[in-house]
Each structure stands twice: as C-alpha cells, then as structure tokens.
C-alpha cells in the first residue's frame, strides 16, 4: 500500500499541541494576564502587606501586629457592628419588599407589568454618587429637606437625619429600602413566570386555598431566586461605601463607619496600608464564608 505520510515527520508533539489548543490559549490570554497582574498579584501582595508596617521607603515585617491592633480597636468593632446592622436591616427587608412588589406585579396585565418593572428599575441605573447627592438634599436637616417638610405637615420638628448618631445609620438604611429592587423584581418575575400553570391547576382541583398555593408552590419554587438575592445582597451590603463616603463620612462619631469605609479611611487618610490590608482580609473572610454558604445551598440550583 502506497501512502504518503502527510506532515507526520514535521509535527512534533509540541507542534501538535499548539495546533490543537494554541487558539484556545490565545483566546483566554488577555483575561488571564490581566488576572495575574491585577487580581492575583494584588491579593498576594495584600496578604503580605497585612503582616507588614508598610512604608514605601522602609517596610518592616511585624507579623500579626496589624491583626492584633485591629481586634483591639474599638472603631473596628464599631464598623463591624454597623456593617452587620446595615446588612440585617436592609437585605431581608429588601427581599420582602421585592417579593411583595413582584407578586403584585405578576397579577397585572402585561403592559402594566412592563410599566412597573421599568419604573421600579429606574433608580438602579442612577449612579451611587447621584443618588447620594439627591438623598443629602432629601435629608436636609433644615425645613428645606423633603422629609422634614413632609413631617412638618404633621407638625413634627425638623430632624438632623444624617448629623446625629441616633438616626444616621437608619437614614442610610431607609435610602436603601427605597430604590434597590429593580434587578430583584425582574429575577422574581422571571422565576414566577417559569412556574408551570399546571401546578396551580392541580392545586385548584385539590381545593387548595390561596395561602396553601403560595406556601406549597410559589414560595418553594422561588427559593433559589430568594437565596440568590439574599447572598448577593449580603455581599453587596458588606461592601457599602459610596453613600457612607458622600453622605456621612462615616460619622457622626463613627455611627455610620462600615468596614469598607474604615478600610478606605485607614489606607487613604492615614496611609496605614498594612493595617488596611489586615482589615480587608477580615472583610474578605466574611464574604468568602457567605459565598461558601451560598455554594452549599445553591449549587444544585445555580448554573455555573
């Protein structure tokens, strides 16, 4: 049998590897390089920094001192407390609001659904800076402020919303309640639309009450969406920064200092990069714990 051996001799295993997979590696090259330089290196560098007293001229290794300082620092604990209060005070409340709104919208006709979806989504496209500026005006402590003006109608004296420790954190939470439902509503509506009608019809045949249908069909089938919103909500609110920075500067008296704000303050006001890195790792660990819990509960429901 006369057969010409095409290109066998010229192609070494390496050449063949390049031919088969070279393109794929080229396609992921840019993101991988950026990842190495702008994510992996910084993470390692931050870890090392957290064990150092960082100074561009003279950096010294101080072991666990940053972490010791951290855990003895009242402001750190206060920021932890604020972050947790903010998270507990916003995420579950927002999920309930989002769910109720979605449930109501779902009963509407299609054109109304679109109107409400669009309206409720609108604040989501406004930037954090814009919203913070507007809310500073709304919370204006004089009688010019929208809320104080509204309360004035009932004869209530102006409140210094952002300027006193007792109301500052609450004010940030209130702002959060009124405007971050857009994405959640759309996810819930998509999930509600995905529940087969036949389930409700079967329940009707079994004479199930409205409540039973809700508790046995709607809620369980929306659980993946709820969990997803819960986890992404927690992670986001752990990192709340812009409104704190622009509206209260973490004050008064650290009443609104969140961890993310504290890290910024430590790093770029006091230029203590080592301590700030240690603080950021505490935040990272909190977020990783939440993410792992997410993965455990959601892995069967969320497609990766």
């Amino acid at each position, binding site marked *: 049998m006369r057969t010409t051996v095409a290109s066998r001799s010229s192609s070494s295993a390496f050449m063949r590897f390049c031919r088969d997979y070279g393109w794929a590696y080229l396609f*992921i090259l840019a993101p991988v390089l950026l990842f190495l330089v702008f994510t992996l290196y910084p993470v390692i560098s931050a870890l090392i920094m957290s064990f150092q007293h960082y100074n561009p001229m003279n950096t010294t290794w101080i072991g666990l001192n940053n972490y010791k300082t951290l855990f003895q620092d009242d402001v750190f604990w206060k920021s932890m407390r604020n972050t947790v209060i903010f998270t507990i005070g916003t995420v579950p409340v927002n999920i309930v609001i989002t769910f109720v709104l979605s449930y109501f919208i779902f009963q509407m006709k299609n054109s109304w659904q679109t109107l409400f979806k669009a309206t409720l989504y609108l604040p989501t496209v406004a930037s954090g800076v814009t919203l913070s500026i507007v809310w500073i005006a709304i919370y204006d402590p004089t009688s010019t402020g929208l809320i104080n003006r509204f309360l004035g109608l009932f004869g209530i004296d102006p409140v210094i919303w952002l300027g006193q420790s007792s109301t500052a954190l609450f004010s940030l939470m209130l702002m959060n309640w009124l405007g971050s439902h857009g994405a959640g509503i759309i996810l819930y509506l998509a999930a509600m639309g995905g*529940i087969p009608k036949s389930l409700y019809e079967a329940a009707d045949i079994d004479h199930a009450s409205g409540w039973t249908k809700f508790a046995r069909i709607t809620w369980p089938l929306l659980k993946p969406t709820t969990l997803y919103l819960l986890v992404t909500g927690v992670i986001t609110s752990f990192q709340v920064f812009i409104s704190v920075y622009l509206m209260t500067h973490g004050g008064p008296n650290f009443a609104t200092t969140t961890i993310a704000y504290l890290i910024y303050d430590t790093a*770029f006001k006091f230029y203590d990069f080592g301590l700030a890195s240690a603080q950021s790792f505490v935040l990272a660990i909190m977020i990783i714990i939440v993410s792992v819990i997410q993965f455990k509960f959601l892995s069967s429901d969320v497609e990766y």
Partner: protein
Amino acid sequence: MHSKSKIIMVTVASVILGLWAIVTIIPLYWMIIGSVQDTTLSATYKPQMIPSIWSVAPFERFFSKTSAWRWLFNSVFISAVLTATNVFFGSLAGYAFAKLKFPGSKTVFWVLLSTMMIPAQVTLIPLYVLIINVFNLGDTYTAIILPGAVSVGNIFLMKQYMSSLPTSLIHAARIDACSEFGIFWKVILPLAKPGLAVLAIFTFVTSWNDFFWPFLITSSDEMRTIQVGLASFVFAESTDYGAIMAGATVGALPMMILFFSLQRYFLQGITIGAVKG
C-alpha cells in the same frame, strides 16, 4: 365570589404598587425638578414639587463652574473603551471556555471564578501601589481602564450564553475551512448579538456609574469622570442647591435615557446567567 375577591386583591395590589412606584421615583423627580429652579434668586425660595419659576441657570452655573464637559467626555470615552474591551475579550474568553476543549480549561475557569469572591477592598491597596508607584500610570486613562478591561463576571456571563449556541455550527465552519478566529468572528459573534448587546449595555452603565477606582486613581481635574467630578463639586459647592441638582441630573440623565431607549435589553438581560427557573 371568587372573582370578587380577585378584583379586591388586584385593586389593593395596584394601589400599593402605584404608591411604591411614586415613592421610588420621587428622589429622581426631586433631583430633576430641583435642577430647574433657581434658589439663589431669593433667600426665601425653597425648591417646590411643582416649581413656580423655571430656570436653566443652575445648569449654566454647573457647567461654568466646573470642567463638566471634559468630565462627560472622559466618562463617555472610558465607558466606551471598557465596553469594547469587555465585550470583545469577555466573549472571546467566554467562547473558549464554553466551546473549545483544552487542557486546564476547567481549572483556569474555576480559579478565575473563585476570585470573584474576593472583595475589591483587598486588591485595592496593592493595585493602587502598582499603578501609581510601579507602572507610574497615576492620573491616566490607562490606569482607569486597564484593571477593569475584562471582568471575570462578564466572562462568566458570556460562557453561560455561548454554551447555549449549537456546537455543530462550529464544526461546520471548521470543515468550511474557517480559521479558529474566523469561526469566532464570522459565526459566533453574529449569533451571540443579543447576549453581546446586553453585556455592552450593562458594562457601559456600570462603567459610567463607577466611582471608587477613578476617584482613587485620578488627581487632576481634567482626568475626572463625571461621577468623580460631581462628588468633588458637591464637596466644594455645598451651598448652590440648584447647581448641585443640575450636576446630579447631568450625571444620571444619560443612563436614564439609555435605559428608556433600550428598556427591553435591561429588563431581559438581568436574568442571563443568574438563576435557573
């Protein structure tokens, strides 16, 4: 009986929804309406829900007191570049991870994905040191753009999206003598247009609204984005209410217009890659 309770339910729902929608919209309304009333004209004039005197003076003052046109240009330029790089590299890598077989593909993907858990605060400081001290790129477009040129989240979204495209088309194109990049460019990209549109829109809005990184890395007035400029303006000019509201409006209105003109993409796109059923 049954339908009567249904009607009551729908009515109650409509009322609550309507009220909530109004409450949601009020801050934005208050912003826009505040920007067309000139409170500096008289010491006693307070901004009204329905203004008695309309004025464009706040906008004129905002633009004359600041480099807002330059900031807007910066925001448009940076958002456009970030959108282009994220769409191109994100879809290219997403396609590779979804459809091409190569050793290590799963491992690399999982390493990338797992770093999404690490909050930005961790990488921030070394990134700052790297850009300012090592690369000497402080206060440049490159510094603002480069770290966000391809986000892992976008690669993930594109991988999800590309997985749903038929593999046989790739095989057909390979037999049709198409190069590997040609397959991506001539076959995959045209097919993935709806997904790319969603990715582009969300990247543009996110980049436009981004505050922290451009704020940290810029020092001169003319390198600021509109969001950073706006924040600096508010700190400097805390008394000119009208101009501040005008500034806020300038920062938000382009995205609101974008939202209304591309509503469909916004409202459908959010569900890509989030949760099954």
